[in-house]
């Protein structure tokens, strides 16, 4: 014989503000105040338990009476009408009056439930961790918001830094942005200079045949050749996929420019090896010299060098053509 404690109803309410007492016939005898708060305006007392709730777990049972007479029967209940808040609980048989005491709690549905029913701290028993759980949910979402803001700021800063960078990340050469700055400085200073505009031939075929990694390798190889063949102070730019511009300060003699172009083309004609494969490319060059213009303009010079480059291409590639100043 186990010892028993008789508890006044007030005590049960304090301990389990979400409880239901059920008669053996399945009718609700009394409910805790928090549970009643979930159905304001509906008199739960006197109704059949199965009229109000759908019993989701256990999935099957013979009769409610038999189910609730099991000592410590675990239950999962949903309201039959909206909001259908899920409740979990345990049923315990009681002797006087004969029936069951069902202790309920929200479980994981507590976050929705406090929204749906405007619950306060006082609606939960002092030992229920629901309030701590709600605290944690709110604290975590505040932290997440803060982290999201931090990520957005960092993302913005990264984009801005990339925008401001002057370097092409694949080859380490200067990029188009740097090219514009250098060209306008040279023109401002009225320095004589030349532009060599190089476009690779058959580069697409390398990419298509051996893949992008091979293509990247070729671009890095080209960058190395250009750096080796030019002077330390020349500015070498990768200004597009397989397009390069060399800005040669103080170098405008056509013979020297032609020699330089040919040295570069000769070296580009030798295949680059990538993972044992021979990647064959060549290069076409267009040359524009600032001294051919009364008033050099970087856009005009780049356009003329580009036209000369296409002349090289249509003349059979792997050659250099000098621009005719417009």
């Amino acid at each position, binding site marked *: 014989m186990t010892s028993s404690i008789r508890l006044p109803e007030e005590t049960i309410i304090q301990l389990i503000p979400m409880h239901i007492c059920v008669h053996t016939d399945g009718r609700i005898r009394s409910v805790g105040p928090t549970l009643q708060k979930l159905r304001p305006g509906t008199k739960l007392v006197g109704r059949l338990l199965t009229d109000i709730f759908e019993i989701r777990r256990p999935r099957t049972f013979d009769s409610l009476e038999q189910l609730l007479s099991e000592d410590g029967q675990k239950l999962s209940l949903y309201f039959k009408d909206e909001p259908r808040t899920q409740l979990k609980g345990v049923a315990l048989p009681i002797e006087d009056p004969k029936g069951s005491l069902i202790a309920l709690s929200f479980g994981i549905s507590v976050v929705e439930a*406090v*929204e749906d029913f*405007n*619950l*306060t*701290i*006082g609606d939960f028993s002092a030992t229920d961790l629901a*309030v*701590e759980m*709600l*605290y*944690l949910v*709110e*604290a*975590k979402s*505040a*932290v997440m918001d*803060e*982290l999201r*803001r*931090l990520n957005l*700021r960092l993302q913005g800063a990264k984009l801005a830094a990339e925008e401001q960078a002057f370097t092409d990340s694949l080859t380490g050469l200067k990029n188009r942005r740097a090219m514009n700055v250098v060209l306008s400085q040279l023109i401002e200073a009225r320095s004589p200079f030349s532009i060599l505009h190089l476009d690779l031939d058959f580069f697409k075929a390398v990419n298509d045949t051996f893949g992008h990694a091979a293509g990247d390798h070729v671009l890095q190889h080209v960058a190395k050749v250009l750096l080796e063949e030019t002077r330390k102070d020349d500015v070498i730019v990768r200004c597009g996929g397989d397009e390069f511009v060399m800005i040669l300060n103080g170098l405008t003699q056509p013979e020297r420019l032609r020699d330089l172009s040919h040295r570069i083309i000769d070296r580009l004609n030798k295949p680059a090896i990538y993972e044992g494969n021979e990647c064959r490319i060549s290069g076409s060059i267009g040359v524009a010299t600032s001294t051919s213009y009364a008033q050099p303009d970087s856009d005009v010079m780049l356009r003329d060098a580009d036209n000369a480059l296409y002349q090289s291409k249509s003349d059979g590639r792997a050659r250099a053509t000098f621009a005719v100043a417009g």
Partner: protein
Amino acid sequence: MHGLINRSIQLFVTDTYGPKIWAKGAELANVPKDGFEAMLSYEDILTEQMINAFSEILDKSPDMLLEDIGTYLVSHPRLQALRRLLRFGGETFVEFLHSLDSLNERARLAVYDLEVPGLEVFDDGGGSFRLICRWRMPGAGHLMIGVLRAMADDYGALVLLDYTGWDRDGNDAIHVDLLDDGFSDGRQFQLARKAEFSQ
């Protein structure tokens, strides 16, 4: 010091005195002019330099400044999140006071590396409480006086707060006299955040 604390000081200065004062103090204190990231950590010394710089610029003692910061943290509309998190501590001001015993644990549950003042609460009976504050920075007691004053308003409690200074172990101590737990209606607190903001 945690970025959340440094950033709170930054927000307090900008919201209360404007961005120009912030920029002036940031320069004097040698802290980032663009301000602090809430989720990063910074050297402790920056926080102290900041408090000293603004104390000088605003001609307020560091203690007064910290008290104002405490009040701002709880009562400014921009920082609703903190007020709400504190209100989870209990339904009444007395319950809230007792919850301060685990303030540090609660803070770390939210942000594992956040160190807020560690508090010990003694209920001397008759509405009289003592709070012992421990922190890695001086001035925790004054900061907490500001926080408690604003929270008492929030709960609608009438309290007398007294800074009783350092105890024998070198901790800040506060004396709280609760005169009336239901002095005013205070501010409503709903467990559901949405419910509160839709009102």
